[in-house]
């Protein structure tokens, strides 16, 4: 056993060993998403069901493209960290690592794919 007091072991860290940064990121991204998600819901809801030309015209608009890109990027980062918390609660050991890595790959993959699609539509 190491000669560390319980306080020394905990100081500046939490169960995730990264302190409160994770929680603070979820707060910041949550507030950001609270501002842009309702607008995105309106835009996406209105575009859904239209022809391809209508959909392209909607998302080709700079403001819509930027907003959708933000929703995807911030939303998926928010998801990645939220899903990580869930995995840390319900899994352990090697399985935990595999699952967290999988969620990370999925999140970044979806972000990149979505941004590529938006760029192709808007530019």
């Amino acid at each position, binding site marked *: 056993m190491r000669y560390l007091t319980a306080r020394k072991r905990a100081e500046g860290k939490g169960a995730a060993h990264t302190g409160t940064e994770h929680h603070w990121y979820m*707060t910041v991204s949550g507030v950001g998403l609270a501002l842009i998600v309702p607008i995105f819901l309106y835009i996406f809801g209105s575009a859904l069901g239209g022809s391809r030309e209508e959909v*392209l015209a909607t998302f080709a608009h700079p403001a819509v493209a930027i907003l959708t890109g933000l929703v995807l990027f911030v939303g998926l980062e928010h998801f990645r960290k939220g899903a990580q918390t869930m995995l840390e609660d319900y899994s352990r050991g090697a399985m935990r690592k595999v699952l967290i890595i999988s969620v990370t790959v999925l999140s970044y993959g979806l972000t990149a794919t979505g941004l590529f*699609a938006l760029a192709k539509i808007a530019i």
Partner: protein
Amino acid sequence: MADVNRGDRPLSPHLTIYRPQMTSISSILTRITGNALIVATLMIVWWLLAAATGPEYFETANAFVTSWFGDLVLTLSLWAIWYHYLAGLRHLIWDAGRCMDIKSAEKLGWICVIGSVVLTILTIIII
């Protein structure tokens, strides 16, 4: 030091022995809705990619996304995002140190449940 069992302690939360109540159910729903939204995100990104790629690909993706199954998933996701939205605001209130007593917490839980249904219906009417 009570270090013997470090790293092999029970995982939380202990769902099987925990009596369901407004606070726990509304918290679990926050987690379920947040994580389940990945399904709708997958569909929307696929739909955007298909629109960017070409008419035939868009036809395929759009047919799926606007099918009864796609409608079901997106409608449930709409409720999920509104629920998660209100539950997130609830966490901001708690983070500010307010409404921490059980009565207020339960009231906030009901606001999330009822509010999310109302917002979902409103959104469907507006769009």
